[in-house]
């Protein structure tokens, strides 16, 4: 008789299964709508950049029987050229979830812990927990990461500190001075992961560029992704950059061949001429923020509007009820209860017509 209680570790048994949302067609059928605007995953509706789109459209079937480059050789050359680094400083993964997993596996053993915030991208905490590693979570302060609390939460078994900059879902960010002070205090006693998934959306003086800090801080690991700004979420591709010594360690726990050929080629193409695409996306996001802020003013709602292609709104009802009511109007948002922000929603910023429909739907639900 199969005895799962004996076979499965306690930390896996107690772990919550993540249930992804159903396909659009299924959701549209259930909610009886003829369209669905996905404003729940911070995707970029303008993408991918034209150069990447051409790669996707023209991917030759003759390449499908051939394994991809196991270590994304060509893409790492391009990344190295773009950021003036060695290709050996890059590790490409199947989305950021895989590189998070690789870093934790590389540095953490039973009894170790990681430190991060309690209301941030949940995958740091999830991966740590299902790996049997303690996740120490510090409260946000004014919606932002609290550097002092994070430093105080460390002990001799802390191996990694995760900082999401700008933070998902609050959009708050550390400026260069704050980040430097933090890194100086850590003083290489821990690995510091700086997750810059939304880096390309930020156009603020004083916003740090993790890539430029790597030479001074060999314990720093920078995460970037092609899922957000570059709109390649369906292809699942992200990367990390760090000192060669740190990357050499992480590479030992990393699955080779995890990133397919199409994703590697599309990612490389996306960076070829990304300036106009990034500018267009930033303009779309800025216009979307304006619309949401106006809506919140009209409805008297609090809006947490920071950097990134998303905003959070405090709603006067249960966020999960609002989700259902908006879905019935063909608009999908993210409820924030799972992020431990009950009563808040997160809205991805999209094209003008979609944001107008979102605003109409909110008005219809909250001021019928």
């Amino acid at each position: 008789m199969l005895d799962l209680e004996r076979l499965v570790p306690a930390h896996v048994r107690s772990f919550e299964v993540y249930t992804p949302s159903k396909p659009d067609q299924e959701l549209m059928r259930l909610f009886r709508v003829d369209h669905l605007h996905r404003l729940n995953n911070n995707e970029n509706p303008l993408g991918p950049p034209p150069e990447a789109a051409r790669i996707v459209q023209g991917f030759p079937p003759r390449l499908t029987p051939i394994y991809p480059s196991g270590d994304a050789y060509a893409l790492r050359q391009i990344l190295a050229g773009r950021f003036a680094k060695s290709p050996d400083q890059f590790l490409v993964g199947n989305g950021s979830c895989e590189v998070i997993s690789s870093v934790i596996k590389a540095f953490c053993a039973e009894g170790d812990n990681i430190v991060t915030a309690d209301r941030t991208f949940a995958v740091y905490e999830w991966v740590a927990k299902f790996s049997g590693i303690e996740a120490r979570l510090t409260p946000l302060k004014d919606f932002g990461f609290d550097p002092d609390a994070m430093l105080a939460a460390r002990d001799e078994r802390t191996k990694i500190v995760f900082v999401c900059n700008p933070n998902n879902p609050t959009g708050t960010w550390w400026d260069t001075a704050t980040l430097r002070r933090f890194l100086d205090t850590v003083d290489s006693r821990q690995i510091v992961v700086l997750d810059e998934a939304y880096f390309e959306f930020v156009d603020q003086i004083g916003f740090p560029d993790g890539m430029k800090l790597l030479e001074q801080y060999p314990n720093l690991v920078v995460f970037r992704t092609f899922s957000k700004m570059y709109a390649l979420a369906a292809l699942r591709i992200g990367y990390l950059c760090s000192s060669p010594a740190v990357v050499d360690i992480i590479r030992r726990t990393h699955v080779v061949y995890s990133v397919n050929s199409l994703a590697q080629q599309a990612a490389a193409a996306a960076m070829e001429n990304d300036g106009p695409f990034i500018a267009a996306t930033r303009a779309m996001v800025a216009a979307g923020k304006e619309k949401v802020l106006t809506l919140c003013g009209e409805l008297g709602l609090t809006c947490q509007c920071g950097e990134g292609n998303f905003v959070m709104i405090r709603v006067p009802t249960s966020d999960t009820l609002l989700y259902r009511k908006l879905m019935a109007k063909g608009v999908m948002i993210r409820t924030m209860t799972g992020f431990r922000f009950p009563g808040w929603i997160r809205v991805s910023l999209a094209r003008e017509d979609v944001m107008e429909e979102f605003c109409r739907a909110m008005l219809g639900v909250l001021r019928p």
Partner: protein
Amino acid sequence: MTNQRTITLRLHADTAWIRMVQGVAEQCGTVFGLDHGKTLRLIMAVEEILVYLADLTPQAPLELNLTPGASHVDTTFSFAARDADLWAMNITACGADCTEENIQAMGLLLAARMSDGLDVRRDGANVILRLRLDRSYPDLETRQSERFAPRGEVLFQPALDPSRIKEACALATALYPEAAVPQAFRTPGKVVDQILGGELSGAMALDQGGNVCGFMTWSPRSATSVSFCGPYVFTSKRTAVARGLTEHLVGAVARTPVSAILSQLPTEDLPREDVELLGTLPLLAADGTPCPMPIWYRGMREDNGLAVWTHPELEGFLRTAYEQLFLMRDIHAVSHQGEQVAGRSVFATSFQPEASQALLIPMLDGADASGTLHGHVQLLLSEGYRNILVHLDLAHGWQAALAPALLKNGFQPRVLLPHAGQADVLVLQHAGS
């Protein structure tokens, strides 16, 4: 994980083992903390059940487990049985018109009356019969209390301090109507044991002076839902404390498999803006006074639909309820196509005497469902129960198919509980109770 203190006996359903089973029950009752009176009741109950099973499934392999819980001792009998055999598990199988054929059920009835809870679950071909004996706890001394002004900032934390849990129980009992406070709060030691034993969770509000400003408890209802009691607020600043307690509960279950929070005993302090009213059960107190019970719900994640079953006679009620709640469901209608319904129906019965409430849970469908329900209603009314409820788990078509039998026997659909079972649960109430 298997409880390391569980005592397990593997035997056959044979009365020859009575003395051995009695001896084990006596020893376990003593070691697991039951007082003498409760231990005697445990001994008699397991004897009755063994006799009953020896008649129901003679010589069948049987597993008996005795497990200490936080505030009780659980005794389970696991065995395989044919559907037809199970009819005798109805608490009515030996009612006023008990026949020779049904005399075997008397043992079950006696065991139910000697225990603090008896329920029956079916898992494929296996049946698990669970008997609960609660430890005895001293009653709370009644006292008068008034709400006070908190000293400084009020903070919220898990309820883990036994002294403060007992203080909270006393304050809740003094400041809230009897019907809004769980029976266990009147024996606070039990609440302490339940919380420290992991059977119950609690949130507590404390001011800077260490005073208990509020309390709230919750426990699992199904694999994906919890039900709560409270919030109980002891300070004059009620709104903020109630909100803090409720948010603590939401935060505590936010990253767990829980999809729904449902009220069990809500108070007037519950922040209404963050919950949804599912409906109000028109319950009666034991003395017959109206005691309407609102049922509140809070979804914990994006609800993207479920498939549920319904009988055409309940479809209208369900569609209206789902529409009002904006819950999307694939509603499949059950229909009788002339197929034979095997065996006889079985309903497990769970009692809450202090609330004059009995809850029927369908275990097996059968052609005699209407008659079986009639028997249950008659028995429960004769025993003075004022509130008779039925829970139908809409994940199971055969439960939905019981609708005509329920309606014929005076039950009416009252409230839909999202995610309260394997799928949503429909609560029906006997109109004449």
